[in-house]
């Protein structure tokens, strides 16, 4: 900003009281400016602190404690040959053949009985999958790395039950108990043991929910925006539609949850906590966002485009669908993506319609019970165990990564296709 330059007489300017007043005013100017800078920096610092806290916790959440030891399948008494492993029920066969016991015995031999008793109940499944993938392993010895129970994992971090801590320390020294990156976190589903949980079930639920939301909210939103901006006559009806849309954009999300609970679940009582109902509820919430951004995008297409089309004989519908809509599309898509990002992070309405149940298998369709990513975060955040704290942060990082990708896509679209008329 340029310094104020008012003509001042020489005698005034020499007055020491004037100089003091001016100095005071400039000091207060600097102070005000610093306050403003402070406010902006504070917001940035909070964001940085939030992200650093979540990331530092999440690093542990993407790992899990595993016990490593060799298993000699050739020497073990598995009553099974390689041919049976090709059958579709090979997992069940391996289970009845006593694979779990074989693992525990091998673990006892290598790391001691106490450590072997802390091998996770789900460990045999992972070994079984490896055997099914490569049946020849049955004839040889294999170095396996299996998850341990939550107690031993906590002991490895120096927490948890006292009696396990020395064991964990000594096993870690020998390199038998290690905390390893856990790719399975992205492919497993909810469980009661933080060592065995994964995010895939919730992620798939979120993807299905978002698909329903997009399929409903996008066409309805775009068509409403076209109607209101291009065709609607000035009438009481139009005013009512406009007021409704503006109000819906401001209604708290939990109210949409109440609507979903009392209307959608009343119509479809069998689809409680299904992505279909969740998607319908979120679509009602997202639709006004799409309408409002769509109207702005349509408004910014210059009238000369419409006049040109009409002048060469296009009908009003052809003008809009062949010329206005394609030109407004980048703006509409940007608004849609931002609306979808908001819907992806939304939790409260999904809690209302019952998507908070414990669901241990990924949903296999739009109507099967499911969880969603933000709801999963909420459910895990209620667990007290330290393992879940890390897993929750890891899930948050996954959610934030998706949101960042969506917003990045919106910004890219805006920069690439936006036309300034």
């Amino acid at each position: 900003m340029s310094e104020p330059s008012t003509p001042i007489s020489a005698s005034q300017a020499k007055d020491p009281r004037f100089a003091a007043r001016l100095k005071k005013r400039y000091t207060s100017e600097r102070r005000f400016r610093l306050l403003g800078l402070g406010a902006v920096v504070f917001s940035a610092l909070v964001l940085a602190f939030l992200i650093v806290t979540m990331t530092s916790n999440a690093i542990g959440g993407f790992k899990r404690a595993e016990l490593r030891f060799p298993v000699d399948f050739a020497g073990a008494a598995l009553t099974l040959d390689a041919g049976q492993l090709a059958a579709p029920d090979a997992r069940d066969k391996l289970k009845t053949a006593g694979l779990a016991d074989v693992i525990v015995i091998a673990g006892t031999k290598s790391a001691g009985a106490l450590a072997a008793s802390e091998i996770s109940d789900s460990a045999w499944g992972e070994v079984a999958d490896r055997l099914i993938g490569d049946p020849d392993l049955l004839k040889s010895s294999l170095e396996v790395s299996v998850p341990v129970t939550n107690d031993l994992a906590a002991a490895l971090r120096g927490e948890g039950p006292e009696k396990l801590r020395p064991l964990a320390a000594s096993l870690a020294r020998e390199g038998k108990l290690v905390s390893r990156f856990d790719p399975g976190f992205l492919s497993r589903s909810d469980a009661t043991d933080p060592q065995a949980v994964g995010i895939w079930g919730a992620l798939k639920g979120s993807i299905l929910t978002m698909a329903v939301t997009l399929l409903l909210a996008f066409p309805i939103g775009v068509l409403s925006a076209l109607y209101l901006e291009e065709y609607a006559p000035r009438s009481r009806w139009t005013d009512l539609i406009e007021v409704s849309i503006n109000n819906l954009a401001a209604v708290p999300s939990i109210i949409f949850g109440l609507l979903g609970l009392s209307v959608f679940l009343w119509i479809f009582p069998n689809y409680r906590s299904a992505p279909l109902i969740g998607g319908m509820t979120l679509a009602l919430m997202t639709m006004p966002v799409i309408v409002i951004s769509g109207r702005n995008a349509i408004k910014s297409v210059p009238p000369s485009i419409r006049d040109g089309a009409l002048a060469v004989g296009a009908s009003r519908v052809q003008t809009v669908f062949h010329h206005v809509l394609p030109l407004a599309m980048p703006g509409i898509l940007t608004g849609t993506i931002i609306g979808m990002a908001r819907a992806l992070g939304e939790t409260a309405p999904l809690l209302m319609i019952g998507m908070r149940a414990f669901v241990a298998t990924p949903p296999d369709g739009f109507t099967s019970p499911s969880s969603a990513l933000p709801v999963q975060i909420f459910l895990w955040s209620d667990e007290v165990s330290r393992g879940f704290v890390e897993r929750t942060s890891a899930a948050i990082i996954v959610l934030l990564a998706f949101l960042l990708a969506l917003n990045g896509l919106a910004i890219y679209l805006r920069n690439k296709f936006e036309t300034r008329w």
Partner: protein
Amino acid sequence: MSPAFPIILAFGLGLIGWLAARARARTFRSAVRAGGARRMHSLPSYHGWFVALAIMAPALLFAAVWSSVTPGMAEADALKSPAAAQLPVFGFQRDSILAEARNLASSPDAAAFNPIARQIAAPMRAAHKFYGSIGLVATLLIGFAAGALAFLRLRPDFTARTQVERAIMVGLLLASLIAVLTTLGILASLVFETTRFFSMVSPGDFLLGTHWGPDPMATPGANVGVDYGAIPLFWGTIYIGAVIAMIVAIPLGLMSAIYLTQYASAGVRRWMKPILEILAGVPTVVYGYFAALTVAPAVRDAAQAIGISSASSESAMAAGLVMGVMIIPFVSSMADDSIAAVPQAMRDGSLAMGATTSETIRRVLIPAALPGIVAGVMLAVSRAIGETMIVVMAAGAAARLTANPFESMTTVTFQIVAMLTGEGSFDHPATLSAFALGFVLFLVTLALNYIALRVVKRFREAYE
């Protein structure tokens, strides 16, 4: 029989109709070109769309209605079968057996724990198959009849485009009516359940009572009203959302807006604006977890360090602080808009008189933009009181009338979640109270938004 079959069939018929009608219209066109016939009114593809729409509209409507009524009819048929006589007459067990049977009927290898379910599933599956084939045949007939009628109307001078465009206009109008329907749906469901609630608890007890302690499991007695005094909830909501959060958000948001619009260089603005946008885009469940995991323990320790022994690990302060941070970008962008709406001449005049930038901002810009800023704050308050996840995760469940921000407090949104996520029955006043609370919340946010938008509108007009 999957309910998707009739829908796929309708689309298939529509495609066939489109191709046939377009081919027919093309023969018209070649006749026109050869001379003799009159001029075509519409392009061939519009003839195609006319027939396709004429087929798909009734067929899809029928398929949707049919697939929503048949499960009920199949169940009724199955209940007439001899196996159904063993069912418990009513209650939870009957519902769970029927649910299992429905599962079995749609996928035969689903797990079933009850033998009766397996017996009922067989007639149910047969009924499903029966009604499914009827639906398929009926969809086919309806689509064919409608298509034939439409096809017979095709002439070279048939106004296919006008008809199709009329259908498009109807579609546009219907789409925009969904918003009105949603608003009506919200109002209707809230009013309906709230009326039921007020038939059990008097509105006076609810709005003026000071004790909140519903028990969803207890049988409601005669004097049920004493447990449903919502004043502590309203107080907690206002204290967290409109007091603590605003003490954080208003100064920080306003100063950010002032700095970014009046002082910051273009480079700083280019970096800081997206950061504020990211802050606004973080999901509330993440803020809630941040509040519960990091902020709440820090607030408790700080309070205990200055000698407040009653400080709890779930406090109004923690929830309010984090909510305030969440609202900063919102206040900032509202203040940004209203400051930008003040005419440049007013600013220039003040600067020309020798005022410094900060004097201009404080004495000229902010007073001139005040109506817009106040409206922005009202919108921010309406967002804050409707915010759910932060208070659910950080504010606590105890309904208290206290001004001590370090104690746990509960809010309207927290209680809505608490009342509806339990196992309570839909006839219990505790469950219904959630709808009454939702209704109050809906009305308050609506009023705040309405007033704020009016203020903004009048303020804009004043400077135009």
